[in-house]
């Protein structure tokens, strides 16, 4: 089935430097940097609202990677629209 596929298809690993952004949200694993009370926000200790903030950071990172890696010149040959 695979032998008759058109030439020029993606075969190996495709890596974009944008993918490195996906590492940023892992900051939330470094508990010592945010395990404290102050500054509080709306009465919420820093520990809690900081982690809510990292959700937003995570979303921004995945959206950026998605947008920036959409047009892959190598996948032209497969006839896909994106």
């Amino acid at each position, binding site marked *: 089935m*695979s032998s008759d596929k058109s030439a020029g298809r993606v075969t190996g690993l495709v890596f974009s430097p944008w993918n490195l952004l996906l590492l940023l949200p892992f900051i939330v694993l470094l508990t010592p940097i945010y395990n404290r009370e102050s500054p509080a926000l709306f009465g919420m200790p820093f520990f809690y609202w900081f982690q809510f903030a990292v959700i937003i950071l995570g979303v921004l990172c995945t959206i950026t990677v998605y947008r920036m890696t959409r047009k892959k010149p190598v*996948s032209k040959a497969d006839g896909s629209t994106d």
Partner: protein
Amino acid sequence: MQWTELIIFVLLFGLVTVLGFVAARWRAADSLDHLDEWGLGGRKFGSWITWFLIGGDLYTAYTFVAVPALLFGAGATGFFALPYTIIAYPLVFLPVLRMWSVSRARGYVTPADFVRGRYGSPLLALIVAVTGIVATMPYIALQLVGLEAVLRSMGFNASGILGHLPLLIAFIILAVYTYQSGLRAPALIAFVKDILIYIVILVAVIYLPIKLGGWDNIFSAAADKFEATPPPPKGPADNVLLTSNNQLQYATLALGSALALFLYPHSVTGVLASRGRDVLKRNMSALPAYSFLLGLLALLGFAAIAAGTKPITNNATGRPDTNTIIPELFNGQFPSWFAGIAFAAIGIGALVPAAIMSIAAANLWTRNVYKEYFRKNATPKEEAKQAKLASLVVKFGAVLFIIGIDPQYAIDLQLIGGVIILQTLPAVAIALYTKWLHRWALVAGWVVGMGWGMILLYQIPNLAAKKEHFGGSALALDKLNILGWQPFEGSTVQIYVGFVVLVANLLVALVVTLVIRRFNVSNGNDDTTGEDYHVDEHDEDLRPIAAH
């Protein structure tokens, strides 16, 4: 009996039952007699359906009652669910695309199908399949714990078999429409479930802090409660912040859980049911909306402390059930019609994941055990039939679990489930990128990871619950004993067991691979090609769906 709550609950439950049966005809192919159709909904779900489906799949009713209950009881450590779901999506963003592509290209239905194709090893596939089924079963049982917490709050708190009757009825209904409609049923019901959950939680997180004097009041009430308990080692290590002993546990548990999340068969089912890579990429950005919700909901555990909520005693076991904290909070703080909606949201929230999990387990059984070992020449129609039957068996197994055995065992087993599903990471996730690890090395790593994981979990006591074994997943580094060598003797710092044994598993797989390569042992035929990992929905020569 609380009639207003009950009537609203029954009405909404009736609505999703109708949806569950109608779902069979929703965007259906000519026939449901193929696993691509029954087990994966035709592999054509778009961004919205996938969002609701995977959201309903991962953020379960049990999560919604257990995470706040954890904060209520233990404080900050219970909040690990947030970092866990924060890093899960960036972590799997790339591998999940490869998994989708290779499965689409080769017609794989389960993660074990992929392992079978990649390594040409029915044994390795069987190991992955059995691990998946064993890890999923208690997870389904836990959905019942969530559903039962709600039923007991509504007044169905009888003892003995009578106390379980409402649960049994709810599950029979679920079993019948899942049998008929397959994955389309939970996909359609997920819409109702999530809309209800969103309404309830948004109202709760705005209304409750106002009523209870603001978040600062709520947090100080929690701090007061935790300070009143004796400090460790006599009492629990509860605190509004992490302590020096549980920070490593917090981070490794979050990482380990995130690594495990998309190894669970039901997550893979949700992923493979989507239409294409773009749908998945969008979802990796959109699914954290649920994490936000989960975090807010978790904080309601502290709100329950401030409101003076008491867990109700489960008359079947005779113990106070902290999982009733959230239902009881709604009971005490909201008018009964709103509490009814909240209960329905949690109750329906149990049905969606239970259905997907039973379908995923049934797919594993059918593809990697039944077809592999009992009926090599099973037609797609026979496969679909077998999977439907298996889904019934799986669900009733879960009900028997709750009725026949103490629900506490389901919780213990779920804990073990997280540790054991992690042990399939090298064979499934790493194999998506490289076949360098040898198949026999993967088997060896799995054996070591599983064995050592069981031993470590067995040795962990829980002082608060007066249990000697399987008391949690936090291992004191002091207890880490590698063949008599204790590298961290005397340390009270805790770490997640699953993480420790995964490292051991990987090291063994690495060393055995290096050794075995010197002896020219076959590493199996690889059915997949490099380009399989990049196919997408619009490719011209794409394998037809529901083909044999």
